[in-house]
């Protein structure tokens, strides 16, 4: 009986909240394109301003690059915090990994995954994707290593020290490009005009590809560290 009352109460509350939210959001205007001409402005002159074919990358790493810097700093801090909370002194003992078939199959597939990740990072200004997405794909390789081959294999190949160095290196690239913007162009994170060939080629769009590479390494290494510090204890008890 008590349970039934609880259920009915929660249903009522749910309905009430739904109604309130519906009332609020029905006040929202009909979607008629954003005024102020934001999107039309980007579509018209984004390519001119930045030289990047992918306009989303142009917004992320050029127009609002400061916000992206903040977001990647969030990842930096989250990695630092998670390692701070979860870190243990002992070396993890690895599991034996999965069966022979899986190991062979992924041995063939992994290089292509890495290639795809690098492609997504380096072509961020030309095709969909960018540093963030490509970095996560690279982090997936580390995850595959720890699951399929055991975390000791991952540890031997890419030790946490290497990952930490990669992560801070990525952060330094981003910050350094920002500071270089002050010196060369007179504004923090201003797009640098060097090495710009015609638009549509790999080396174009100023400093956007380099920021992409920095963010890619940073995100990939950071997420790999998070995953690694989460599995440590588990595999020790598996063995």
């Amino acid at each position, binding site marked *: 009986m008590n349970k039934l009352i609880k259920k009915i109460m929660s249903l009522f509350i749910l309905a009430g909240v739904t109604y309130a939210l519906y009332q*609020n959001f029905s*006040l*929202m*205007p009909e979607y008629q394109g*954003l*005024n*102020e*001409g*934001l999107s039309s*402005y980007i579509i018209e002159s984004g390519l001119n*301003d930045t030289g990047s074919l992918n306009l989303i990358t142009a*917004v992320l790493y050029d*127009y*609002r*690059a*400061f*916000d992206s810097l*903040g*977001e990647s*700093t*969030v990842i*930096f*801090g*989250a990695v*630092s*915090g*998670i*390692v*701070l*909370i979860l*870190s243990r002194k002992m070396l993890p003992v690895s599991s034996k990994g999965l069966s022979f078939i899986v190991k062979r199959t992924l041995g063939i597939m992994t290089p292509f995954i890495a290639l795809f990740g690098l492609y997504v990072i380096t072509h961020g200004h030309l095709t969909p994707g960018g540093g963030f997405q490509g970095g996560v794909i690279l982090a997936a390789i580390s995850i595959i290593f720890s699951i399929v081959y055991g975390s000791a294999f991952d540890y031997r190949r890419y030790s946490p020290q290497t990952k*930490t160095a990669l992560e*801070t290196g990525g*952060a*330094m690239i981003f*910050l350094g490009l*920002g*500071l270089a913007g*002050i010196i060369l162009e*007179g*504004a*923090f*994170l*201003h797009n640098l005009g060097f090495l710009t060939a015609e638009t549509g080629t790999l080396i174009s769009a100023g400093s956007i590809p380099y920021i992409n590479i920095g963010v890619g390494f940073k995100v990939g290494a950071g997420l790999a560290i998070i995953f690694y510090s989460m599995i440590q204890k588990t595999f020790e008890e598996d063995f």
Partner: protein
Amino acid sequence: MSWMNIELILLIALPALTAVIMYFSKYFKQRLRNFFAITGAGIELYLIFSLFVVNYEAVKKSDFFLQYTIGYQNTPFVINFAMDNLSLLFSLIVTGAVFLIVIFSTQYIRDKEHRYFALFFLVLAAIQGSILTADLFTLYLFIETITIFTTPLISFKKTEETTRAAMQYLFYGITGGIFFFISMILIYFKLGTLKMAAVAESFSLISAPMQLTIIIFFLLALIIKLGIFPIHFWLPRAHSACPAPISALLSGVLLKVYLYIFMRLFWTMISFDFLVNLHLNAFVLDLALVSSLIGHIFALQADNLKKMLAYSSIGHIGMILAVLMLNTEAAFYGGLLHIIAHLLMKSGLFLSSGYLLQRTLSHHIDDLKGIGHKNRLVFIAFITICLGTIGMPPLIGFVSKWYVLLAFLKARHFFGAFVVGAGSIIALIYYLRYISQAYETVKSESLSLKEEFFSLREIFNSTNIMKTVIYIFTLLVIFFGLSYQLFELPVNTAIFELLNPQKYIELVLGG
């Protein structure tokens, strides 16, 4: 170009750079690491102080304004950073307090310092960013950043209690962030811009029910973050679980930053008249007063020294919020002065409690027996700052509480005046409980006062650095209590900013 002031971006980038260096400092010697940490905070303090000194004339005439723009000119989505007198005041006091806390924690934190300092400086960068930014999205980003970075610092000791407190803190912090985000999205859909100045200009174009929704969600977000009465229970747990310097950072500094954001939102961006039109100001005022009273009453029953201090923080923050809601010049004067006073006093109290509790069994009141005999001078400093929070005449707490009381009386709001007085009396009772416990007789021999005083010369001994920081806070409390007129100029110019938001709006949009 006068509107491109590189210092503003350096104020944010410098702590971030220090954080990256500290992250690598595992391989440094301890002295080098401490040197880097203190230098990073010191350069920051020097930068902001030189800004104040160089622009002293402009501050005096209250037309001080610095601005920095990231992005292409004449595009609708540049990121603005702006610093007016209000942000200057807050940035100055926050950086000063953080500098002292950094010096304290170089000696207090004994393991995993590199991660501690990396996170600490990231929090400092986020605090500076949220004070300086003039863009709603960047503000949201920095608020979330503060929440995410302080969570691992709260669970630094890795016990069950601290983990639980950190999880609760994270949950409520993120919930507050979501409310903030909803308001932000609604504003973006309605007005198509997130620049605070542009929003301020066209906020009256939004229909009245939508205005109510936006304002209520902003209020909810900030009430959660400030720990006002209905949603206050996470605050004492979080603020008492962490190491002492982090308690000082959270309770002394961060709550003031949220108060600053409150002022920025409800006086500059959304004009206060909208709150008055919707009759929300009286409601928030009463809520804050009730919260103040409840904070003081809960502090009476807290058997844990740090928890008691955290509850007393709830009381003071509620009082400041209430006096700000009066929206008169006298009220702003009292409120801003009490913000400065509370920042100094609460940081000093938490730091000295951290020093005193180093060698006790627990933070429980029964374990504090005889603590006043063991560390005489530090405990005298503790008592002095306690008297400051109660409002004893020569100290800064008296001055600020006096002006708060005057503001309530001038506005003929007698319940507020009653809460200020009652809060002081209750505070006297709960501080006396601890002080009498600390002077219980103990058997062990203790250093004489004279000996301890002369041992001050060994200033580079680690415990003495900690003691020195506590003494500095005490001396500041006494000094500013005697010469509070020093704050008259910055506080008055900050009030000018609050009363004339039009200046800020025009300068940001014109730049």
